[in-house]
């Protein structure tokens, strides 16, 4: 069953489906004009672009259901999309499929301060939840750097993290209840109004499932009290290895920072040029370490972290004097990707996660690989949880450079796997990391993933060709790896 290749859709089925959708939906809900479709041709991984048959922009859950029923009837694939900030091509359209944007389902349905929850539609932006909760002294903890734009539906699909997830958890730890529609339009409720639901923990599997299992149409998320006090330390290092060792030391010291981030020199300079965060631009690497809690607790913690950082060779440790400076320190970090984006026509963001103690070694290895491939790499890390974001700078207009970038990217992910890590910490597999998935998982495990998917979506119509590689693809990938060659027919699609 799982060995079957991904679906094929014939022309006439696609046409019939479009006609049926047009009949069933109001005109502003179905877009087919090529210029409009182009807006949706990619997510934030712009190296992959494709036009869908149509873009559906439903206003409510019932329209989503209608769309799913019709597409299923015609065997047409559906690709869910939130804000399109994904970095692995998860929302890349299917050429014979409907791109289903959840952007119009963007209402905050309820803020419940007594139960400390927010019930929202999937198209609500991440930051909007915290903004709505703030008057009650509450916030939604997972805070991806893209939080002004990315949606809760997309966060659930990718199990998004943020700078505060070491202490407060990822999306999976902060979503209590999900209402979703399966590929055949049936309602599926996962989790519950309390802290758990009956039966299997479907909320856990839906989270991080990249839109392959069901379309999220509503979520109830946990809100946490805003901390009484948060302070951030900035530490500068002359050697990247020292910064890496300091990260391990802080965690080993029994401290759970609210955030522990690292940037290398190139990232520091780019961010400084862009937002003037006040970073020391001569440092080989900086760490940002935030502690939160009560005043007394934070003060004691800051003293301990300061000592640990100094012990591990920090040349300078600065405590943000006030809230404005704290925000400035974070602004530099949160703007790191766009800042790096100004250095080069294109950049490619990797997302490997490794054990903390391997950070120094893997960063050295990345620098070697970068030299070998003749491409600059800038490093931004959620260091506290070992999550690396090497950014490879390239120019897609130079022939062969994207291919070289991808080769370098795959080598970097291999280095992560070899260090005992994983090919994706928070950005998802999408279309981009299908081959590295073949390295990380054996055939039996991949077959199990396919079987699990088919339990939800037997016809594999939701986001086909993403997240889990087919066994055929992996067999080919492994054979290729043995020969060390390039793909035999690079122009063919390999789902």
């Amino acid at each position, binding site marked *: 069953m799982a060995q079957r290749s991904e679906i094929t859709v014939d022309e006439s089925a696609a046409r019939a489906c479009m006609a049926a959708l047009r009949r069933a939906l109001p005109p502003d809900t179905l877009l087919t004009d090529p210029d409009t479709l182009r807006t949706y041709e990619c997510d934030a991984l712009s190296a992959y672009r494709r036009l869908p048959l149509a873009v559906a922009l439903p206003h409510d859950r019932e329209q989503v259901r209608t769309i799913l029923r019709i597409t299923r009837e015609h065997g047409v694939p559906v690709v869910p999309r939130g804000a399109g900030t994904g970095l692995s091509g998860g929302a890349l359209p299917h050429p014979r499929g409907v791109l289903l944007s959840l952007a119009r389902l963007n209402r905050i349905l309820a803020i*419940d301060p007594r139960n400390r929850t927010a019930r929202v539609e999937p198209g609500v932006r991440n930051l909007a939840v915290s903004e709505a909760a703030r008057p009650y002294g509450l916030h939604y903890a997972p805070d991806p750097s893209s939080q002004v734009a990315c949606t809760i539906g997309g966060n659930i699909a990718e199990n998004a993290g943020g700078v505060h997830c070491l202490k407060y958890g990822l999306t999976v730890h902060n979503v209590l209840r999900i209402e979703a529609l399966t590929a055949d339009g049936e309602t599926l409720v996962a989790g519950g*109004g*309390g802290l758990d639901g009956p039966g299997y923990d479907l909320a*856990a599997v839906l989270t991080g499932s990249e839109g392959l299992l069901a379309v999220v149409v509503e979520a109830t998320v946990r809100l946490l009290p805003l901390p*009484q006090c948060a302070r951030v330390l900035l530490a500068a290092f002359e050697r990247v290895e020292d910064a890496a060792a300091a990260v391990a030391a802080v965690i080993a010291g029994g401290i759970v920072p609210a955030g522990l981030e690292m940037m290398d020199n190139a990232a520091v300079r780019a961010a400084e040029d862009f937002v003037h965060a006040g970073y020391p631009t001569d440092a080989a690497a900086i760490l940002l370490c935030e502690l939160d809690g*009560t005043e007394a607790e934070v003060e004691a913690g800051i003293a301990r972290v300061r000592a640990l950082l100094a012990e591990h060779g920090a040349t300078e440790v600065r405590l943000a004097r006030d809230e404005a400076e704290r925000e400035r320190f974070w602004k530099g970090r949160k703007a790191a990707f766009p800042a790096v984006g100004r250095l080069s026509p294109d950049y490619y963001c990797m997302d490997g996660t490794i054990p903390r103690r391997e950070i120094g070694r893997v960063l050295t290895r990345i620098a070697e690989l970068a030299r070998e491939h003749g491409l600059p790499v800038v490093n931004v890390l959620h260091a506290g949880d070992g999550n690396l974001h090497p950014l490879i700078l390239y120019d897609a207009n130079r022939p062969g450079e994207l291919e070289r970038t991808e080769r370098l990217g795959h080598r970097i992910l291999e280095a992560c796997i070899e260090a005992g890590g994983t090919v994706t910490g928070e950005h998802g597999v999408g279309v981009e990391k299908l081959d590295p998935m073949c390295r990380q*998982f*054996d055939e039996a495990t*991949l077959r199990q993933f396919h079987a699990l998917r088919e339990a939800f979506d037997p016809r594999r119509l939701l986001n086909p060709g993403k*997240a889990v590689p087919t066994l055929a693809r992996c067999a080919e990938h492994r054979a290729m790896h043995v020969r060390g060659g390039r793909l035999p027919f690079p122009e063919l699609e390999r789902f």
Partner: protein
Amino acid sequence: MAADADLGEQLAARVAEAAAAGTPLRIEGSGSKAFYGRPVAGEPLPLAGHRGIVAYEPAELYVTARAGTPLAELEATLAARGQRLGCEPPRFGGRGTVGGMVAAGLSGPRRPWSWAVRDVVLGVRCINGRGEILAFGGRLMKNVAGFDAARLMAGSLGTLAVLLEVTLRVDPAPEATLTVSLECDMAEAIERLAAWGRLPLPLAGACHLDGRLHLRLEGAEASVREAAARLGGEARADDGGLWAGLRDHTLPFLSGDDPRPLWRLSVPPATPPLPLPGEWLLDWGGAQRWLRTDAPAGAVRATAERAGGHATCFRGEGIEPFHPLPPAALALHRRIKAAFDPAGILNPGRMYAEGGP
């Protein structure tokens, strides 16, 4: 103490054989939670011999242990390094195993402010119903490669796979713990908790029983003292075994020989007192409510559902233990079980009847 041993291959062979023969298996840890869930008719598959801590790296905040490792042994190892499991799983009689803890997915009083069992599961090695050894997740907090089948195992009561090894997130133990107790009735306790829940207090437990609200504070010495002063009431370092009794179900309310069924209701924490007869024990700041009642199962379940939650019959003769699922959800559960265990041999019917998982 029994010797550590890796029986993974043998166990997998045994499952493969059973799958071929269509023989149902009853997976056994220590049997400490045998009362939980529906009885399974099958040949026993004992896991207790498959034991031992495989890896523990305090600085990486994880531990990997074989399923048959006694929970008490694991916790002692962590405590020696100043660490612990945030999910505070019950130790029923001190016999529980690590695999049983994940399979049952029961979390202790700290759950709302720390983690649930499923939250601390970072990875598992397991045997599916085909006898294949599979690995999901890993040792890292952040990992979105592949579906999160590792967390799906938590609470699945062995109906999807035989757990061989689990990797768990560990957390530093706090510097100080204090318990604050106040006289008040249940309705007032719920009101107070709803208000306090919005404040950044270092809470790590909140339960109400016998007319008293007990709050556990954990963290830095200074912040725990400050919070205790703010909450008022009497504060003490010695809780008289309250939290351990709640956690391990040794409190008379949970363990005693009350002939009435013991129900667990999972509801939004600020839900007002529910209109059901019997005695209540509120845990998890109100989100987990224990009830001793003779009320009919249907009434208990309907009441929990109206409040936005569900009800489990934790101990009680002749009552379906788990909250019934709507038909479409039950069908999905069956397909998920079949995806892992096509022959239906792993703890069949432990959760639901009639070919359910």
